[in-house]
């Protein structure tokens, strides 16, 4: 095994690094250098190696995630891209699903397609739903496009034909013609990038892949070169949005699979903590400055999805972004963070977010010219932060500015005292997050009862108790290292690759040969990707069928045994489906046939087994020595509105086993953990804060 592992996560503001060497972890934050992100990485790598006293050659593995692809899509800074498509379907990217994501906004904005219409190039050809050729590919028409691509300075080409996921021959032929004529072009085929039914989603994914490909290929080349010059010879792996790792070569072909790798790292961080602590049902809650992200984690695996929306233009509204059909960790992003701004709406209601003060000017209390009240300002007025200690004392907060902003924008219009207005803001943002979490549970067919909330990010530990109360959750973990959680998550990610393919089947006429053939090919392809980085580690394979009753709308993932299927397996699939359906919706529908729309295969290295946590590590020996508080602070409770003196403890002063009854605040440099009345907290053997609510 490699002696040490280095993770690098490039975010919008900071590049986070985590190095594990001989069982010891070192972490570091450096500023991101947006113009040439590899420069910030080099600075950080040099520094963290020096901090840890580790020689570059001793690093056995580098794991990397970046928001570069996401940012290029949001800021529209990708390559000049063309889309070659079936004649008659030039406008699939513009027409989307012909709907508006907001019924009541006449001035609605829809995202512009990544490729303008004059570079969406129709070619005569047509394949039907079964893969039969209705019209042959007009190769002359393809050749005729080559001068146009040159004239328009096109650097990257997406190819998307109808039903190509059933029969990729026409797309492959276009790929050959372009490779022969213009070997310098980047070509992305929809049948390779996202071989799934539904042309809008497939073309959108393929176009986005083409759009970020030149940029990512160049960046990854520079990064590899830079690390080599530092003396690192370790292989570089890229974090995927689905939670696995892959090689630079695969990342260069399918860079679209790297979007959202940072948040994926955060979810893996939570999943690892869940596994460590033997918590089989978890809600991961990561609240930062602009947004909060939640993710359901069952059996130590973050919830997976097959699609995702990037670059939303409408206030985080579902439907306002570009759809991507790629394997992702399913997360809900809510426009609620410390910087979210509060105002009073036309109905006299307090409304919070999604508009955000951002880092500059930031909340009013930052004293940088912000005059609108943000969630951080409200927390400050409720006594939840020590204004002198915020951000480790580097950013003293201005309470008077916070009070003035809240008074003007919220308290005065409603005739409330300023502190009550602050309470209203916090209560409303907590309610918004809890409501989004409830809807997400419904959409996922899950519940919150009996779950543990794992809270991190700057705001997570501040809001965790109240959100848990609203969701009926009675147990919370606040891990250490939460400020660089994603980078730590990278270190825990398996080398893994997931493929999703559409193959329509009905259980009443199940073609085991066709299914076995497809699944075997998928396994082979995924194993080839993983083999490049598994160093001979043991591999596991997970197969899933996405099934539904004929005529119903939502597919349910059903596990498929990872071996050749025989006719006897059909009954097993039906039983597994019925069980999964009943789990989601209570009542199976008798007499309905079942259809399979697609299959997924994940090949993954098997995670290293964890030492079983001893009783001391897991918990909460309740008889530890009492810790005296640093001081008392007046805090207003957001549930009751009452003010009381809450003891404040430094997290560093706690030792495993000591239990503190709420209300209390556990302060640390990056955040504060609020322990509400009726809750208690103990430091467990992993160094995590474990909060639990007393039975009522």
């Amino acid at each position, binding site marked *: 095994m490699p002696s040490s592992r280095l993770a690098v996560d490039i975010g919008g503001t900071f590049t986070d690094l985590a190095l594990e060497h001989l069982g010891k972890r070192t972490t570091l934050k450096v500023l991101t250098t947006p113009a040439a992100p590899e420069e910030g990485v080099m600075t950080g790598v040099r520094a963290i190696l020096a901090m840890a006293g580790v020689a570059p050659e001793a690093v056995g593995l580098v794991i990397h995630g970046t928001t570069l692809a996401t940012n290029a899509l949001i800021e529209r800074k990708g390559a000049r891209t063309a889309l070659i498509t079936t004649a*008659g*379907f*030039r*406008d*699939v990217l*513009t*027409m989307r699903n*012909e*709907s*508006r994501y907001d*019924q*009541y906004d*006449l*001035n609605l*904005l829809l995202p512009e397609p990544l490729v*303008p*219409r*004059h570079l969406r190039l129709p070619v005569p050809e*047509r394949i*039907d*739903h079964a893969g039969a050729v209705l019209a042959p590919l007009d190769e002359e028409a393809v050749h005729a496009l080559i001068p146009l691509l040159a004239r328009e300075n096109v650097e990257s080409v997406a190819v998307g034909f*109808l039903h190509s996921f059933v029969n990729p021959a026409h797309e492959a032929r276009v790929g050959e013609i372009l490779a022969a004529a213009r070997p310098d072009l980047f070509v992305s085929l929809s049948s390779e990038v996202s071989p799934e*039914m*539904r*042309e*809008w*989603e497939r073309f959108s994914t393929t176009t986005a892949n083409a759009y970020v490909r030149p940029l990512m290929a160049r960046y990854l080349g520079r990064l590899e070169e830079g690390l080599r010059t530092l003396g690192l010879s370790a292989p570089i792996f890229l974090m995927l949005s689905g939670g696995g790792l892959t090689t630079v070569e695969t990342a260069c072909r399918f860079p679209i699979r790297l979007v959202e790798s940072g948040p994926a790292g955060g979810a893996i961080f939570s999943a690892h903590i869940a596994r460590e602590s033997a918590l089989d049902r978890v809600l991961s809650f990561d609240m930062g400055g602009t947004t909060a992200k939640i993710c359901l984690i069952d059996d130590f695996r973050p919830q997976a999805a097959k699609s995702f929306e990037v670059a939303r233009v409408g206030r985080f509204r579902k439907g306002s972004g570009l759809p991507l059909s790629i394997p992702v960790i399913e997360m809900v992003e809510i426009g609620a963070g410390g910087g979210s701004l509060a105002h009073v*709406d*036309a*109905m*006299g*209601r*307090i409304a919070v977010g999604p508009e955000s003060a951002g880092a500059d000017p930031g909340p009013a209390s930052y004293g940088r010219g912000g005059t609108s009240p943000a969630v951080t300002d409200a927390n400050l007025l409720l006594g939840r932060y020590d204004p002198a200690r915020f951000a480790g004392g580097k950013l003293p907060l201005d309470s008077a500015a916070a009070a003035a902003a809240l008074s003007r924008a919220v308290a005065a219009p409603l005739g*409330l*005292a300023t502190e*009550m207005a602050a309470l*209203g803001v916090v*209560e*409303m943002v907590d*309610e918004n997050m809890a*409501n989004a979490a*409830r*809807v997400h549970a*419904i*959409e996922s067919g899950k519940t919150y009862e009996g779950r543990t909330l794992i809270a991190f990010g700057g705001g997570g530990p501040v809001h965790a108790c109240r959100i848990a109360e*609203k969701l*009926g959750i009675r147990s919370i973990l606040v891990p250490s290292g939460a400020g660089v959680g994603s980078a730590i998550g990278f270190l825990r990610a398996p080398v893994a690759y997931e493929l999703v393919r559409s193959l*329509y089947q009905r259980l009443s006429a199940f073609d085991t040969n066709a299914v076995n053939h497809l699944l075997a090919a998928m396994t082979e392809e995924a194993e080839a990707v993983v083999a490049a980085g598994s160093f001979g580690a043991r591999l596991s394979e997970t197969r899933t069928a996405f099934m539904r*009753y004929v*005529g*119903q*709308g*939502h597919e349910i993932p059903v596990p498929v045994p990872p071996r050749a299927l025989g006719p006897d397996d059909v009954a097993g699939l039906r039983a597994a489906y019925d069980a999964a359906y009943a789990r*989601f*919706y209570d*009542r199976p*529908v008798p007499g*309905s046939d079942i259809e399979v729309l697609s299959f997924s295969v994940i090949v993954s290295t098997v995670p290293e087994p964890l030492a079983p946590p001893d009783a001391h590590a897991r918990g909460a020996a309740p008889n530890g020595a009492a810790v005296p508080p640093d001081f008392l602070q007046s805090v207003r409770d957001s549930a*009751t*509105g009452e003010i009381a003196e809450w003891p404040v403890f430094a997290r560093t002063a706690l030792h495993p086993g000591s239990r503190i009854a709420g209300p209390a605040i556990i302060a640390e440099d990056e955040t504060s953990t609020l322990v509400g009345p009726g809750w208690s907290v103990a430091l467990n053997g992993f160094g995590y804060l474990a909060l639990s609510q007393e039975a009522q």
Partner: protein
Amino acid sequence: MMAANIVGLAEIQRQVMWNRLIAVVEEQAQTMIRTAFSTTVREAGDLSAGIFDLEGRMMAQAVTGTPGHVNSMMESVGHFLKKFPAETMRPGDHYITNDPWLGTGHLHDLTVVTPAFHDARMVGLFANTAHVIDVGGLGMGPEGRSVFEEGLYIPIVKCFDEGRPNETFFDFVRAGTRLPVELEGDIYSLCACNDAGIRRLAEMMAEFRLEGLEPLAAFIFENSRRATEAEIARLPSGTFSAEICSDGYDEEVTLKAAMTIGKVGGKDRITVDYAGTSPCSTRGINVPAAYTRAYSCFGIKVVVAPEIPNNWASLAPFEMRIPPGSILDAPRPYPVSVRHVIGHLLPDLMMGCLYQAVPDRVTAEGASSLWNPPLRGGASVSGPPRGNRPALPDFEIITFNSGGTGARPMRDGLDATAFPSGVRTMAVEATENVAPIVVWRKELRPDSGGAGRTRGGMGQIMEIGAKDDLEFACNAIFDRVKHPPKGRSGGKQGAGGRVALKSGRILRTKGFQIIPEGDRLILELPGGGGMGDPALRAPADVARDVRDGLVSPEAARTLYKVVVGPDGALDRAATEALRHPLKT
């Protein structure tokens, strides 16, 4: 200070509960989308969900859903309570109807109402409405001559009695539809989604220690009423008239509205009088009054008070006077199956009135009516298979398609996008997987968006054939062919629609028609109207549209007075000369 804080906390909690109630009905709607069988619900989102107080007044409605059900479902709960008074309702009861005049306007919409109990006391009602795919009869289309031909008619009845299914009812339902499994499954889904709402409401009432919903209802109604009236008070008062023409079934239909904005008995109100509107049609394009009110309210609200949540009080200040017997208040038993084709024009009519009051807040007219071709083939069209003649398997399918929306004051209209309806289209690949048809073309229709300073959204062109180009049929329900969407403030009208065979023959806009073997159906969907003088449009925007092939160089020159070379390059000097001939 302490007392003030207690009052403050109560105020904040009421606000939180209002948000929670909206989240509860949103969960109700999401449950329906996930469990429904009909594509109309799960793919297209043709549904609605809400919670009502004991007097049948809507307290909150799910954000997810389509405007057609706004306040038509709202009125419906009152009809249920009239037949089954609250004191007769028991936990586990579910009530249902699809009566177009007691529900939401046609037999394809089922409405289910369920009482909610907390601590053994009835505290409110949950209701939802969904458009199901088949209720027997002639199927979706305009051909019926009375509602009795249009399908299974369900009066308000109990479908679950204290949790037990009413098997007699379900026997009738299964016998009356082409798709018994789906219809029964949908009814179960509607009941389950109300149950989900009831469970969540009970949790909320326990958390906030509520005994009843009355104080919360009063708070919601008072704030909504005040906010809506304040928005109305900001409008210029007066009476503003407009009219709009539909192609009709076999004769044109005129819709007339006179909208009065101002105080009525001291309260700010908007009243719409539809005097002068055409009488009922003999075919199923007639509109029951509740559906007229629904789309009229939507058209007004989207302009006047879009941010205010829908509930009884926020909709109450809008009053409609509809002449009985007109096509907008068709009495039973007139046929009403495709009432949306007229109903979807109502927001354009409302904006025609509002344009005179607040011209910078409305859009130009759009394609508005959906272009959803119900397609059918196989034995029911071509007779039983004979000899070696190739035959299609039996199929029936409807796809959802939209023309362009009207130009907005500051932005172009949306290309090929549904408005006012909230439905979504299905992927062509998915459609071709469930029916033996081939969509040969589905793309934007150049030069269809009305010219203007901001232009109308482009319509689209579709070419549809059956597998192997065999015979099939279309039960047409299209509009805006003879009467294209109009522009405003000097903007030009959008292109009218066109329904034809590929071989050239023009088809009727409404009614059952055969597409013969070897031929295909061509649909050219209307573009939206433009807004403002086209000669004021930014030349760079015109040049972009020319380069994109959406506006022809001729249209750029004649309509927009912009000169663009064949390569899409803008000729600034020639444009300047064309736009300002006197200066040069």
